């Protein structure tokens, strides 16, 4: 092994901080304020123990367990217990995503663009860049842990003592660290930044699903997932610290492994080799549509498998849910049965809104790929030939629309297939499928927004992700947090009728569709008339 592998790590760390002088604070501030605001709002929402206990009862069901994790301390549902139960998992996942994106940005993405080559030709150690990325990310996560920990404690809520609050912060920080390490590892294995992001996010989703299925059916499964470890710290209830040490320990092992792999590999090479391709383009590739599809093929297939599994995992919970409802009178009082519909079906509507939002991610990626190609100066190659802008944008649009439909269908099929196999009284597939399909207009609005931003303000096209996150937040957690009505009105998903429990309101769907068509049209027209940027 060669000498001075870490030389100049400090300067490179400085470079990372300098480059992300806006990005990192934005992540830190939004994640910590979100946490603290939610914690503060719990005290307003549930004034006394009685109210909290009532909500605890509604949380006692497998669907909730699958979504937010096992409820610790449901017998004595303090503000702290509630916070850890309802918010910890989501915040931890958001931190994981932050860590994944930041690590890729400073490792594989920089390497792919040839910037690491210049650094490596200077007297900087072979591992200095990876090492500094990991150090900065660990620093960011520790900082986040401390801000959140002391911030929660500073609210002065009785059940949120200093130890619990620090553990809450540590749980979030440890998740960030382990996903920093996982991403650092995939940055060595994969040859591209897209691949690295893809693999890392896949691990995150698998971790979530393993935990969901495990929490409901077999706890051993949950212990295979880092997210399961984190929740196992039982923050504010039993305050176990060892899961945090376990997580950080595993993260450290992964870091060592990724440093080792980095040290022995060539620059710009990976361990998962891309296989060599065909010599001639298949006729299928030879159109803007074919090209756009080809560029995204692998990603779309992965997502298709993913959404099917997602539907299936949720479906697997339905059986438990059914038997749970059968012998829980309390629940029947809380959710008064709607004539002709089982309680399971009522829960289904909530599942569908979540599924539809997750299924919106791949079509948005497909649409935004147009902008990505533009940023890399690759649309020029097409537009300088006999391809009109409308046709180019249309290709991405078609893929976006079709993939959205396909993802939603696959998720519904997965849900129906697995769900009906575990339930005693199944749900008619047609009913289930239409419950998914009604969400199409909302999805179209999201795609339309992406198209609009690409046409009007391509630099700001990331806003559509913020909007989707917002929708997810208000629809998924809005009920729990009792957010004001107007907040959820701002999301298209909120206007979708809750089939099968509600009637399909065709007028509403029609209006949503018209809105989608209008913004899509504006997007197209603007794209046609603006400068193409590099």
């Amino acid at each position, binding site marked *: 092994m*060669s000498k001075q592998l870490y030389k*100049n790590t400090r300067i490179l760390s400085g*470079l990372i901080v300098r480059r992300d002088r806006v990005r990192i604070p934005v992540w830190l501030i939004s994640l910590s304020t979100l946490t603290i605001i939610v914690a503060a709002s719990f005290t307003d929402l549930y004034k006394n123990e009685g109210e909290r206990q009532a909500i605890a009862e509604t949380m006692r069901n497998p669907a909730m367990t699958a979504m937010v994790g096992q409820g610790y301390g449901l017998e004595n549902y303090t503000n702290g217990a509630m916070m850890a139960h309802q918010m910890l998992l989501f915040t931890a996942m958001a931190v994981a995503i932050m860590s994944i994106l930041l690590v890729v940005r400073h490792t594989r993405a920089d390497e792919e663009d*040839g*910037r690491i080559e210049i650094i490596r030709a200077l007297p900087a150690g072979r591992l200095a860049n990876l090492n500094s990325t990991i150090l900065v990310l660990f620093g960011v996560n520790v900082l986040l842990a401390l801000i959140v920990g002391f911030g929660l404690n500073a609210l002065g809520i009785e059940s949120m003592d200093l130890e619990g609050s620090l553990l809450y912060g540590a749980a979030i920080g440890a998740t960030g660290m382990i996903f920093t390490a996982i991403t650092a590892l995939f940055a060595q294995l994969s040859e591209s930044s897209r691949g690295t992001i893809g693999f890392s996010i896949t691990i995150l989703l698998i971790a979530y699903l393993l935990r969901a299925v495990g929490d409901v059916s077999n706890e051993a499964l949950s212990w295979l997932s880092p997210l399961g470890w984190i929740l196992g710290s039982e923050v504010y209830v039993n305050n176990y610290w060892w899961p945090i040490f376990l997580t950080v320990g595993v993260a450290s092992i992964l870091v060592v492994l990724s440093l080792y792999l980095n040290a022995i590999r060539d*620059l710009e090479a990976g361990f998962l080799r891309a296989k060599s391709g065909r010599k001639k383009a298949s006729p299928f590739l030879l159109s803007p549509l074919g090209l756009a599809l080809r560029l995204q093929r692998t990603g779309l297939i992965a997502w298709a498998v993913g959404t099917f599994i997602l539907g299936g995992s949720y479906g697997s919970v339905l059986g438990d849910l059914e038997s749970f409802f059968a012998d829980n009178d309390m629940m029947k009082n809380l959710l008064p049965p709607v004539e002709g519909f089982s309680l399971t079906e009522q829960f289904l509507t909530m599942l569908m809104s979540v599924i539809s939002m997750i299924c919106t991610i791949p079509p948005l990626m497909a649409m935004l790929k147009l902008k990505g190609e533009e940023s890399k100066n690759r649309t020029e190659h097409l537009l300088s030939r006999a391809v009109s802008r409308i046709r180019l944008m249309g290709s991405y649009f078609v893929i976006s629309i079709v993939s959205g439909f396909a993802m939603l269908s696959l998720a519904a099929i997965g849900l129906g297939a697995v769900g009906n196999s575990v339930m005693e009284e199944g749900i008619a597939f047609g009913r289930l499928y239409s419950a998914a399909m009604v969400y199409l207009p909302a999805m179209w609005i999201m795609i339309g927004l992406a198209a609009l931003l690409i046409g009007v303000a391509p630099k700001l096209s990331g806003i559509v992700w913020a909007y989707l996150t917002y929708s997810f937040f208000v629809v998924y957690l809005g009920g729990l947090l009792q957010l004001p009505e107007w907040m959820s009105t701002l999301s298209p998903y909120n206007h979708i009728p809750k089939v099968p429990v509600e009637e399909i309101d065709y007028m509403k769907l029609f209006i949503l569709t018209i809105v989608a068509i209008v913004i899509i049209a504006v997007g197209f027209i603007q794209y046609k008339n603006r400068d193409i940027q590099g």
Partner: protein
Amino acid sequence: MSVLKTTNLIKRFGAFTALDGVNIEVNEGEVYGFIGPNGAGKSTTIRLLLGILKATEGEARIFGMDVWEDAVDIHKRIAYVPGDVNLWPNLTGGEVIDLFVKLRGSNNKSRREELIKKFDLDPSKKCRTYSKGNRQKVALISAFSSDADLYILDEPTSGLDPLMERVFQECVLEAKSTGKSVILSSHILSEVERLCDKVGIIRQGKMIETGTLNELRHLTRTSLAVETKQPLINLNEMRGVHGVEKKDRALSFQVDAEELDNVIKYVSRFGILSLVSTPPTLEDLFMRHYEGAGKTPKAGVGGAK
């Protein structure tokens, strides 16, 4: 004294052999031109020299140190400019230059200012907005403002305008005059011809020729155009004569260097009225090597053995 020396360097990417026994030697104060067709292995060799690729077999030493083991120590004394410079979009050119200088640890402020002026770069702009040539300038300025002993340049002038190209050449000659060594890979033959003392030609991962330009010229054909009193006959049958063409009353043809003496003796028997001889341009030399190594006469000048 040799500054850079590779011995039988082999690099494989999977089953593909990119470099197949490359031997290069660059001495102190020497400018070494490294040329060859696209995909021949120039950049691969250079990246091995920088210690960012690991050789499958063979050895490469710079300043007597191993390029992989002692990369950091070597890099303190070298400067590298790639042909495709990609920089951090939200840093300015000035910031990037300073970063590179800081990473190297040396500092020569006046030199930096002088070069920024010479290359006519606006260092206050964000790298996102730089044109290709301007990004190239950032790398060149950081390289030449350092006190390196060896400059490793991989198509450093791609994207520069002719004026800047000249500034670059001045920088290289200046470095050379102070005893620095340079290894320069380039497709711009006039640049190589002007700057390099020694040239190495690589093709399909093998060094096919190495030597000074004069030595290499020797290996190729001289173009002749002659007009004789009596019709020049049977020229085609002479050894080492190629491409005979009739132009007005003159004949033009090429002659292998080693047959030149014989051919001139033969031609003079027909009574020479006029004779124009053009030394082979570097271009001819390259063309012959690039097109097919098989036909090249292998006279005893360096290169791959």
